[in-house]
């Protein structure tokens, strides 16, 4: 039997091509996703395990600060005098301070190095004196020895072309300053860790730029030989005592903690990629299953013959199994290699700094296992079915498909569909996106179940125009498309998944865009927005806004700055414990530029006044007239503005969110040294057009390297297109799924032609022209493709509507259907359907009429 199997394999190489491709693409999808995930994780894990390689213990503040506006948490500062105490601890070989923050190195062309909005962060820190603890090594020049010197990483030096001795401008939250480049440092053997840029100063200058004199972010220590990290930590703890507001952790802990933070930050990506991995397996499995059903169906007669001459069922199945193993292994290996290409493509989409891929044994195992197991199952189920057919029946005719008449299937399918729609609608109106997701899943399952039952009427409707247009060829195409409803439904369904998800994401994307657009169009009256690409980590010098305000074209300039602070309602306890929150500083103009809905009080930001949003009013139990106490945190060098009275309460939305606590610029600047802006909003004087004002504003902004100005229209576009990389990523993955699905259609049509050899012969005999035959086959394919596409569009639109509706409370109020894109998808699917049938149609038209008629 083995011989028979191998012979069969060799004799029908061409029919295995599609199966092989299906397996390959499925595995490519899975392995691409796995490798990409690992690569992303490794890139960031390596960065921090290298940074903390020699660190055995870290002393840091036990105060965690929420930066506000989604900026994440940072630690408070500790006193630098602790360094002496740590160094005195028995067992500490070396100890050094670090002052961490963000800085932008400005290149000779005036553009800042790096793109923190998209890629690796841009750090500022102190040059650690301890060679052991400092992960950097000077490769050229000297460490900084005075406050006007800086060392930068070799990557940034290469990007900018700076040489030792050059003057380099570096900008921090505190402002922009010029330094002499005293040295260039490398990170181990690399130019910098993970593409992040580094500017490193003396301790004093780092404190000046990033923190506060006399304070440091943390103290790291290396142990003497023979002392464990844990031992070192407990000795330092003992030495420092309990009551200094610090905690001590091991080097391993800080590495893990940082890596966990990264994992969490990247968590969405991992989940997201995992989600696509599952889709990949499902779509791949469908197509592989289909391909093998087809191969087995093609061989039903051959198998029946084998059975008739005495082959046992098991032997027949084993023959198929051997074939499946060969195809599965070959396809999986090829697919894995293909997947590496996919991962490489996607990693460049994500702009990962490290271009080499992380290929873990796990990825290889999973991808190959998926490919081989799915192939085996896909081959065995139809083979098992085929082996159940009595030999004579199989020799006479292909088994009749009765699934279309299964009442149980219809009922279960309908119940699931109804439940899914109910869940989706409930989720949509109940602001439960998860329900919507489950609803979409249910829709797909329900559609899968009732597919074979409804295939005929659906094909009837979709095929009606084809029949009208193409006459009898069209009618035949329509009827043939559902000759085997189960197969048709399965084939179309693989496409439904792909198209459904593409539609879903496109609808979601266009709705989000529309919401942002609407919010900015209706809620914002400004004309220009000055921003920076680093989320305000370094920020804009206030000078930008002040200079723009001088322009005659300009009516109002509203700077927007914020810093973390403790806020309480009791003036008696200035030392408020608990969570920090962001406090915004801006001027009265904000109320003209934003159409804020002030629900209580009045919009006023005079000194001693604070405006809060309604959620804060509710959660902190505040009313107009109440007094709040604000204390800014140390690392912003903040003090306390005067106690403020709540003057107004406003309703916040996604675009109308100016912060929980908003105070006037005078109070803000009085409490904070060296404030920097996150954004500056500009409105023009009456009668001045955007085009007229643009050159003057741009001229000012160009003087500030980290500042960027956009008109409102440009800004809308920037905001909306920030999801584009993710969207492209999704689309690339899904296009792959769609292509796999089309392979399935090509397979199904090939089989359908093969099964109807005699009928085609007859049609040719009674005068069907070759082009009519081709047309009939092509349209059959197009109808199946359209069926899958229409179903996919329906599911995608429903899901997209549901998820958008469920996010209404988050401010996504617009539901927009990208009609043009969806029409393109539908047309494209139809065309691909026609193309999938090219080869089978050609074969059908070329067949010999006489031998076709006499085929049994």
């Amino acid at each position, binding site marked *: 039997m083995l011989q028979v199997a191998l012979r069969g394999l060799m004799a029908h190489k061409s029919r295995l091509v599609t199966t092989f491709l299906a397996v390959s693409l499925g595995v490519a999808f899975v392995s691409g996703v796995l490798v990409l995930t690992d690569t992303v994780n490794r890139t960031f894990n390596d960065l921090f395990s290298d940074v903390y390689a020699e660190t055995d213990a870290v002393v840091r503040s036990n105060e965690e600060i929420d930066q506000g506006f989604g900026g994440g948490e940072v630690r408070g500062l500790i006193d630098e005098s602790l360094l002496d105490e740590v160094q005195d601890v028995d067992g500490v070989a070396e100890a050094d301070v670090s002052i961490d923050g963000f800085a932008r190195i400005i290149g000779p062309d005036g553009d800042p190095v790096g793109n923190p909005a998209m890629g690796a962060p841009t750090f500022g820190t102190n040059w650690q004196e301890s060679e052991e603890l400092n992960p950097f090594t000077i490769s050229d020049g000297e460490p900084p020895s005075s406050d006007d010197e800086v060392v930068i990483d070799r990557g940034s030096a290469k990007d900018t072309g700076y040489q030792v001795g050059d003057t380099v401008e570096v900008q921090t939250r505190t402002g922009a300053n010029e330094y002499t480049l005293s040295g260039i440092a490398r990170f181990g053997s690399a130019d910098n860790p993970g593409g992040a840029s580094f500017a490193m100063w003396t301790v004093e200058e780092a404190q000046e730029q990033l923190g506060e004199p006399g304070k440091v972010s943390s103290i790291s220590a290396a142990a003497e030989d023979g002392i464990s990290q844990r031992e070192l930590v407990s000795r330092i703890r003992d030495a420092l005592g309990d009551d200094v507001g610090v905690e001590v952790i091991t080097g391993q802990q800080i590495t893990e903690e940082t890596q966990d933070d990264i994992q969490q930050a990247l968590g969405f990506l991992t989940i997201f990629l995992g989600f696509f991995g599952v889709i990949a397996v499902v779509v791949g499995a469908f197509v592989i299953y289909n391909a093998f059903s087809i191969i087995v169906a093609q061989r039903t007669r051959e198998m029946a013959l084998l059975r008739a001459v005495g082959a046992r069922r098991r032997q027949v199945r084993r023959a198929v199994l051997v074939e499946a193993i060969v195809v599965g292994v070959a396809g999986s290996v090829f697919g894995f290699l293909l997947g590496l290409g996919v991962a490489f493509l996607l990693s460049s989409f994500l702009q990962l700094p490290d271009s080499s891929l992380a290929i873990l044994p796990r990825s290889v195992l999973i991808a190959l296992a998926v490919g081989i197991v799915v192939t085996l199952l896909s081959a065995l189920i139809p083979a098992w079915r085929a082996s159940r057919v009595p030999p004579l029946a199989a020799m006479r005719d292909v088994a009749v498909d009765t699934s279309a008449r299964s009442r149980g299937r219809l009922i279960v399918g309908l119940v699931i569909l109804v439940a899914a729609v109910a869940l989706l609608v409930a989720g949509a109106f109940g602001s439960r996106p998860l329900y919507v997701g489950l609803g979409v899943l249910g829709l797909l399952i329900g559609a899968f179940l009732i597919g074979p039952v409804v295939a005929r009427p659906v094909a009837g409707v979709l095929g009606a125009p084809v029949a009208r247009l193409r*006459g009898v060829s069209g*009618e035949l195409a329509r009827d*043939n498309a559902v000759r085997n409803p189960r197969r048709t439904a399965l084939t179309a369904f693989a496409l439904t998944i792909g198209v459904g998800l593409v539609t879903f994401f496109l609808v979601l994307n266009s709705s989000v865009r529309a919401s942002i657009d609407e919010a900015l169009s209706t809620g914002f009256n400004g004309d220009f927005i000055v921003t920076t690409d680093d989320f305000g980590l370094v920020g804009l010098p206030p000078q930008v806004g002040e200079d723009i305000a001088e322009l005659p074209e300009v009516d109002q300039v509203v700077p927007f700055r914020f810093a973390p602070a403790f806020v309480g309602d009791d003036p008696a306890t200035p030392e408020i414990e608990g969570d920090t929150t962001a406090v915004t500083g801006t001027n009265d103009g904000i109320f003209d530029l934003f159409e804020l809905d002030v629900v209580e009080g009045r919009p006023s930001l005079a000194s001693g006044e604070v405006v809060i949003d309604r959620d804060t009013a509710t959660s902190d139990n505040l009313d107009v007239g109440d007094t709040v106490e604000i204390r800014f945190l140390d690392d912003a060098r903040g003090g306390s503005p005067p106690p403020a009275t709540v003057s107004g309460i406003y309703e916040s939305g996604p675009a109308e969110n100016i912060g929980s606590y908003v105070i006037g610029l005078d109070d803000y600047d009085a409490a904070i040294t060296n404030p920097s802006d996150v954004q500056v909003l500009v409105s023009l004087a009456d009668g001045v057009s955007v085009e007229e004002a643009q050159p003057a504003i741009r001229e000012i902004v160009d003087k500030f390297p980290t500042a960027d100005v956009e008109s409102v229209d440009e800004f809308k576009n920037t905001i909306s297109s920030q999801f584009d990389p993710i969207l492209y990523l999704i689309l690339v993955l899904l296009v792959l799924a769609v292509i796999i699905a089309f392979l399935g259609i090509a397979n199904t049509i090939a089989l359908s032609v093969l099964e109807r050899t005699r009928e085609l012969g007859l*049609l040719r005999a*009674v*005068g069907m022209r070759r082009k009519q035959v081709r047309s009939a086959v092509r349209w059959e394919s197009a109808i199946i493709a359209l069926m899958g596409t229409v179903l996919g569009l329906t599911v995608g639109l429903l899901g997209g509507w549901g998820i958008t509706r469920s996010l209404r409370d988050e401010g996504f109020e617009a539901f927009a259907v990208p009609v043009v894109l969806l029409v393109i998808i539908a047309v494209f699917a139809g065309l691909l359907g026609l193309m999938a049938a090219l080869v089978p149609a050609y074969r059908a038209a070329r067949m010999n009429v*006489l031998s076709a008629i006499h085929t049994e």
Partner: protein
Amino acid sequence: MDVTADSPQPEDAPVAVAEPPAARTVDAVKIYGQGDTAVAALDGVTLEVPRAHYTAIMGPSGSGKSTLMHCMAGLDSLTSGQVFVGDQDLGDLSEDELTLLRRDRVGFVFQAYNLVPTLNAQENIVLPLSLAGRKPDREWLDTVVSTTGLRDRLTHRPSELSGGQQQRVAVARALASRPEIIFADEPTGNLDSRAGAEILDFMRRAVQEMSQTIVMVTHDPVAAAYADTAVFLVDGKIVDTMEGPTAERVLDRLKQLGD
């Protein structure tokens, strides 16, 4: 022997004089295979099929009767010699032109019915017309349908019809486009004797009442008895022609040939 050598039957005479025969072959040769394995399925067949005439081609298996029919119908090509449908030499036609000839000028009835399973009886009957994009002649179609006696079954699919009914649909399909000639390949081969008799009678009436030309390949003497002329083929050659055959005479002749 040659059909043209015989004097035509009196009622056909005016037609035969006015128009060329419905189909004819001149020294038709069909060789399968090459060199040592070459087999001549047709070995110089010259035959004329008069219009409005029912011709049966008889012969044992392997005599070349099906090959002759296929070549005359434009389904297969000759190795040498000529085939004409009307005055059209099929050798001059391209594949597509042959398809159009089959569609517009020739009808077929196959042994295994060969209906399209997804189309109902009515749709199957008008299939060649639909393929040509032509509207069927209502009146004519009506006549054909009445003759088949299938009026109440027109919306049924082939799988819902008996073998005899399916074959009647097949004959009606062949008649519907009023072809110049109908070729029937063992049309009763898959039917019991009663259903077979119905079909043969139906075809007989088509010749008599509708002046249809029919060429039928069969090895059944009873079927041949319905024809006007029986042509006997052995080893790719015409060995005899019998006018007004009866089952007994045909059987006798076949026995002689078999000896």
